[in-house]
């Protein structure tokens, strides 16, 4: 399992593409928003947590179609299916690699982008915390969507259509936790809800995703 994780991490970092790009996308989004809504600092502060959450979600979505697609094309997914490691474990590791290469950097980057969007002071604690609790769910749900569309040619658009509705609860609770935190309201219960969604997704979705991959490999 750790070998698979390390392989995916190395691939993500060295092969170019997903790793830096989704961070750059996150940055560009945060730069573009003020152009769209105007430079009014109060307005920006009001929407900063939500915008950063939506941005993180889209950035995570961006690199999803590479999750299984490349392995599917060069046949290593079939090799994985015959390996002693159950497909569930392989899927979980792939999602973990995706999280380590996109989710975690997004968490680290979010306070910096918070400065651009005039995030309220308390938000610098709560926004990264809520992202830290929520991005595992984004990666795992995304891995499920990627598993569904692995056999589809040019499934990127379909993937986003499938995954985005599934992101709704995570986004609602995550952005709400960040918003409440930024406004100084009690945010801990909602943060725990986000964490619960992440944990439940990590516990249950590898099975669904592995089932989907097995169907596609059939």
């Amino acid at each position: 399992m750790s070998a698979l994780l390390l392989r995916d991490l190395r691939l993500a970092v060295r092969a170019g593409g997903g790793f830096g790009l989704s961070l750059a996308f996150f940055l560009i989004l945060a730069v573009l928003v003020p152009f769209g809504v105007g430079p009014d600092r109060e307005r920006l502060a009001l929407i900063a947590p939500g915008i950063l959450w939506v941005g993180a979600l889209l950035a995570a979505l961006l690199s999803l179609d590479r999750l299984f697609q490349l392995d599917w094309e060069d046949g290593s997914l079939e090799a994985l299916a015959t390996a002693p490691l159950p497909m569930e474990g392989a899927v979980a590791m792939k999602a973990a690699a995706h999280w380590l290469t996109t989710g975690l950097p997004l968490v680290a980057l979010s306070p910096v982008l918070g400065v651009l969007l005039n995030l309220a002071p308390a938000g610098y604690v709560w926004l990264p915390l809520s992202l830290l609790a929520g991005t595992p769910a984004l990666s795992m749900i995304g891995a499920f969507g990627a598993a569904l569309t692995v056999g589809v040619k040019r499934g990127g658009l379909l993937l986003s259509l499938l995954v985005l509705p599934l992101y709704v609860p995570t986004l609602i609770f995550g952005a709400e936790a960040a918003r409440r935190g930024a406004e100084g309201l009690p945010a801990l219960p909602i943060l725990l809800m986000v964490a619960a969604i992440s944990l439940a997704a990590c516990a249950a979705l590898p099975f669904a995703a592995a089932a989907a991959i097995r169907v596609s490999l059939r």
Partner: protein
Amino acid sequence: MSLWEYANPKKFMETTGWLLPWLTALTALTLGGGLVWGFFLTPDADRFGSTVKILYVHVPSAFIAINAWVMMLVTSLIWLVRRHHVSVLAARAAAPVGMVMTLIALFTGAVWGEPMWGTWWAWDPRLTAFLILFLFYLGYLALWAAIENPDTAADLTSVLCLVGSVFAFLSRYAVYFWAQGLHQGASLSVDRAQHVADVYAYPLWLTMAGFVFLFLTLVFVRTRTEIRARRLSALVARERKAA
């Protein structure tokens, strides 16, 4: 005699072929009767005026929109467990019907909301949950359309339906929480069905039954079409093999 007999496509075709004319007549009777009764034979409501008559389309379509998804969930499960093709074809047949019902509910809601609330759309929990349901239908149908192999498509869409149900359910409650957090309670939404007077309730029940029959009729017709399409493609494949 068990329910599973109807999973045999031949038996299903026979039974529904016999049932469909009756079902169609029943649909026409209940739906037509309910709508005529509701539209022309009930008085205008005090606060709503004649807009109250949207009720007879709005509530049943919303009811079907949700229950079509529940039906898809059940039939998808049956497909995954027992591998009955008719089951998953019924799920596929129900999806567009459910999607259109969701659209009808959203549209009639908007038309009703404009005079009553002064807005076509508000991010009220109910409306939002329905919009999300619409997105789920969209994704389900898109996945069906994207995959060529029918059995692969059936498996994948069934898995999506199961997972999607959990998330749709979660979204529904998340949305309630979210809108309360923003708007201090869903003051815009009234639980209409429970508060209508008998004058409106009787035709409403009739149209509800009419929509249920309509849904059944449409699903049967569409499932029969799907089964025939399958048979046709099997024939074509056999022909090609022989040639």
